[in-house]
């Protein structure tokens, strides 16, 4: 397992570096470069030249990249030029909130998907399977914002049960204190992922049911339910751990849309507002942080999988 983990860690480090390279390249694709992005289009050429010299933007690209990397490592992500605040502090404030939304949604997705997937596998080819398959296709095809809109129309306007705006508290605790406001954002984010997870679980359970070891278990005199619970589920659920990691980008894309829809004060909303106002330091800062979070998240998922699966854990 040590070998596997070392290899996976090295891979994650390389990917992290490349993520920073991509963001660095995007920074240099900005119209007028970083100077215009930070000083604004009204700045005089002299001011731009002065800025470029001061910030080292007149050096060679590799040198600039190293400087950029150095700043990143000290946590310096630049200054938002609309919010008068450092991007680092903005993110420090918003990151926990988005993590809360993403975590709750991912947990809800897994909790819903597992029984649904098993149900579909066990009832394969029957009505329940067909209905759930149809719903999964529908979920794939529905843009998150349309889904959110329909949920708001139904649960907030037709039947005024839930607020259409997310809690506006500053802290995670404060947000959790208003659970009603969290319901619609979390459900909206989770539903698309539920479809994918339950489809995966359906086929994993079906694949495992066809394995020889299931026949062996039945030949011992176990009932179908016991075979499913004791033997099949463990084998089918294990890879779900890595799937959670693979779905992080989808999850973050979902929170971007949901946060801007429900005015949830996380990174997504920050990013969306920055896009409206061309606040490039913020845009790129969020992009970088989300990329890093994805890499670390899927690393974590793979490590968890290695620990849980005896085939990797106990390789001599």
């Amino acid at each position, binding site marked *: 397992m040590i070998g596997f983990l070392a290899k996976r860690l090295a891979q994650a480090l390389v990917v992290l570096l490349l993520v920073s390279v991509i963001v660095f390249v995007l920074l240099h694709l900005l119209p007028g470069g970083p100077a215009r992005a930070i000083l604004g289009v009204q700045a005089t050429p002299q001011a731009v030249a002065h800025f470029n010299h001061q910030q080292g933007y007149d050096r060679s690209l590799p040198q600039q990249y190293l400087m950029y990397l150095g700043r990143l490592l000290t946590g310096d992500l630049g200054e938002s030029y609309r919010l008068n605040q450092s991007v680092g502090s903005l993110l420090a404030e918003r990151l926990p909130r988005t993590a809360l939304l993403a975590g709750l949604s991912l947990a809800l997705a897994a909790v819903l998907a597992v029984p649904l997937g098993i149900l579909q596998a066990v009832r394969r080819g029957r009505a329940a399977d067909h209905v759930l398959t149809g719903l999964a296709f529908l979920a794939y095809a529905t*843009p998150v914002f349309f889904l959110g809109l329909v949920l708001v129309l139904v649960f907030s306007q037709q039947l005024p049960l839930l607020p259409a705006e997310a809690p506006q508290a500053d802290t995670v605790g404060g947000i959790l204190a208003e659970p009603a406001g969290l319901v619609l954002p979390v459900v909206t984010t989770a539903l698309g*992922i539920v479809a*994918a997870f339950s489809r995966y679980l359906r086929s994993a359970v079906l694949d495992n049911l066809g394995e020889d070891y299931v026949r062996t278990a039945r030949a011992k005199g176990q009932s179908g339910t016991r075979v499913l619970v004791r033997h099949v589920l463990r084998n089918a659920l294990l890879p779900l751990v890595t799937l959670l990691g693979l779905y992080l980008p*989808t999850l973050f894309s979902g929170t971007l849309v949901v946060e801007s829809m429900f005015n949830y004060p996380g990174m997504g909303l920050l*990013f969306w507002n920055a*896009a409206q106002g061309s606040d490039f330091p913020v845009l790129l800062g969020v992009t970088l942080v989300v990329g890093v979070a994805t890499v670390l998240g899927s690393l974590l998922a793979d490590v968890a999988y290695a620990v849980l699966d005896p085939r990797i854990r106990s390789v001599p």
Partner: protein
Amino acid sequence: MTTTAPAPQDAAPAVPGPVRRVLTGFRRNKLALTGALILLALLAFCFLGPLLHPTDQIHTDLTQANRAPGAGHPLGTTDLGYDLLGRLMYGGRTSLEVGLAAGLLATLVGTVYGAVAGYFGGWPDAVMMRVTDAALAIPALFLLVVVATLVTPSKPVLILVIASVAWLSPARLLRGEALALRSRDYVHAMRLMGGGGTRAVFRHILPNALGTVVVNATFQIADAILYVAYLSFLGLSLPPPAADWGSLLSAGITYTQVGHWWLIFPPGIAIVLVVAAFNFLGDGLRDAFDVRLDTGRGSHR
């Protein structure tokens, strides 16, 4: 009993060839057929519809703004007085054109990139794949928005922007496929006959990867159509008077409080229909070609 037996009864029953198999598999799959029919209907609606229901989609007419569905305007009008039914047809063209073009372009680029990485293997593969890993680690919507803010949207620009993000997942898929096909025994057999890399790629690897490419292309188009809608929702759509289903839908969101449902459901349902239709089609093709795509769908959105 003879020593070598060309035994006539040894012949297996005739089995149809691959093309026929794909066709029969397709016909058997009602879902795929449904998908194809929905697509045809939507194409007819967008491109032939205006002949039956001609409307002015260039000039605003504020006297006609925000009408509920009724005579003359079967689906009502928008806040700028456009006839919504006509606008759906007009906007659908954008969604379909951009989605199709971006999906196909992404598949093409991704296929070539993935096939090259997979076929060569070793260091080139490792470097090329780490680059896609890194780009895939940044959630697609974030990347799309950043790229979109750098440019002024037009149809070709939108196609390029979406393709620039969407090519990553077919690249990974095809890389795996090429890696697997490269070590098939029939490729080894061909090498032993004296055949080279060109023959391996064009005669054996590409034809056998074709199923995967075609299936992936349909899913890619579905995703590209969704990306167009997401960009519009996030405020990065084509400037008016151009429209697409996503921008129609997000324009309607402002009016949900006052109950203008007709501004929301028609474009929303149109998006769901077209994306579902491409997914149905892809699923049917996947069964017909008998290909397995590795992870679940949607991991790249």
